[in-house]
């Protein structure tokens, strides 16, 4: 090996490149990210203390926007719907696991089946929303004839304030289940076959096998499934916008949608109020972000 370069002094770059190189590589990424993601978060916090229509001079109002939120019925409706989304969306995880178990076989053509079960995930939420809106549509949709087979009376899922949110969540679950399914299929692929056989010899089967042998090995897949599902639930916007525009009577709004409506729609450009709603949504999300980072930090230290 040559050691000739070791002691010969060359330019500044050559002497300092180990310290300078990471910053050189990081600079463009950090600049972009700081400008478009990090700084705007703080700006939104700031804007939430102003009354501002997006054009004129912002008027400082202190905590007025937050105080108004407390008396805003639409805010509570949105918050309650967010909780529904969060809770029901988590059903995607067991449902995805169930389908993954169903498809984890090696019969002919199973690869194609797996792909076809998965591909709703790559369709845009806008189109999924449209497809389900037509599916539910009382005059042309298949939904009513379908539930009619089981003796249910026809209903207008998206036109009824008490069913509309569930209808949209069901549409949202469709791609999310596909996502969880693919995570679990990958996880099942990596399950240690020797452990499974050993457990079989010990008489473990069915649910007991699943619970005590398989699920512990699927932990990493479950973790990712929880993270992406929670984030997905709190990000729900596209479907609500496409399927109902938050209606009927605002009953299918969530915070993400209500914020958009307040800041950028015909109801007026109330940027400060919108920012306050966004801050609340951000704080809810922050719990999960902190949890995720904490897990990662533990793992990093373990390495």
């Amino acid at each position, binding site marked *: 090996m040559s050691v000739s370069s070791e002691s010969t002094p060359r330019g500044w770059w050559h002497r300092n490149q180990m310290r300078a190189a990471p910053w050189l590589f990081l600079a463009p990424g950090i600049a972009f990210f700081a400008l478009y993601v990090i700084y705007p978060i703080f700006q939104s916090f700031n804007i939430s203390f102003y009354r501002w229509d997006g054009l004129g001079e912002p008027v400082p109002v202190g905590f007025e926007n937050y105080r108004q939120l407390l008396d805003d019925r639409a805010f509570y409706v949105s918050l309650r719907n967010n909780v529904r989304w969060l809770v029901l969306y988590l059903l995607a995880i067991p449902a995805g696991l169930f389908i993954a178990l169903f498809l984890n076989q090696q019969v002919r053509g199973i690869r194609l089946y797996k*792909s076809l079960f998965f591909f709703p995930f790559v*369709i845009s939420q806008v189109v999924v929303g449209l497809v389900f809106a037509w599916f539910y549509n009382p005059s042309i949709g298949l939904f009513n004839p379908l539930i009619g087979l089981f003796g249910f009376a026809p209903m207008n899922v998206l036109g009824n304030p008490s069913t509309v949110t569930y209808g949209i969540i069901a549409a949202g679950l469709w791609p999310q289940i596909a996502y969880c399914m693919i995570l679990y299929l990958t996880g099942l692929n990596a399950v240690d076959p020797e452990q499974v056989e050993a457990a079989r010899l010990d008489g473990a089967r069915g649910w007991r096998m699943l619970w005590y042998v398989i699920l512990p090995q699927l932990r990493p897949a479950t973790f990712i499934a929880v993270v992406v599902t929670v984030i997905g639930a709190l990000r729900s916007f596209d479907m609500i916008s496409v399927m109902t525009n938050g209606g009927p009577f605002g009953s299918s709004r969530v915070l993400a949608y209500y914020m958009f409506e307040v800041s950028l729609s015909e109801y007026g450009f109330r940027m400060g109020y919108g920012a306050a709603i966004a801050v609340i949504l951000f704080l809810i999300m922050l719990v999960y972000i902190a949890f995720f980072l904490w897990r990662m930090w533990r793992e990093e230290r373990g390495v």
Partner: protein
Amino acid sequence: MFPTPVERRSAAVQNTYKALLPLALILWLLPLLMVALFSIKPDSDFTQGNLWGLPSAFAGFDNYTRVFTDSAMPRYLLNSVFITVPTVIGAVALSCMTGFALGVYRFRSNIWIFFMFVAGNFVPFQILMVPVRDLTLNMGLYDTRLGLVLFHIAFQTGFCTLFMRNFIRALPRELIEAARVEGVSEIRIFWYVVLPLMRPAIAALSVLIFTFIWNDYFWAVVLTQGVETQPVTAGITAFNSQFRAAYHMMSAGSIIAALPPVMMFFLMQKHFIAGLTLGAVK
């Protein structure tokens, strides 16, 4: 394997399983199949109440042709391409560098910068909406594709950095150490040693980001308006008001709008799933 492979079960179980598979698939894709059926029906089927039966005549060709000739759909699709492709290139290029920096070098703030990217990637869009729209307006880029692309690149860099950094961490360090001993400069190590090894990660990330950006709706609505700039996800609403209640046309339009990422997925399946399930296996 779990559950028990069906080949080890009785013939009855095997046959039931094989019969259940297509049934389950049809049920699973039912809403989509309905729309696919609508898209090949002639207008008259809807007025005569022949909704779910076989089409009275095959009108698929006409319907899909009309999507391209009678509407602004081609323009929207083109806009989507001009928004998606530069974003993929930009975000992947930036994150190759950030991922390299965070994956290879040890320095004190490394983990904090990494966490900044990860945390930012999870942030709700709404907390960025007002300032980013304002920033784009001030730069004179509101209602331009460039304005949308710049934001997408910046935001996707968060997820891409997480991905690339973890990928590079898993590469053998000896290669880099060996190159350093030989006196290869850090920039050349990046270009000639690490980058070639990152090809699978670049492929996986490209198809993922392509899908994410093609399917974006929120930012398209916030940062653009009108036919000149909006991508197809936003354009489909205009398309649907043009063909109000013409379900055969709206169905054909939706399928066209959804198709590019679906094709991308089927063509690049291995990379797509490898990217999506990163970390699902220890």
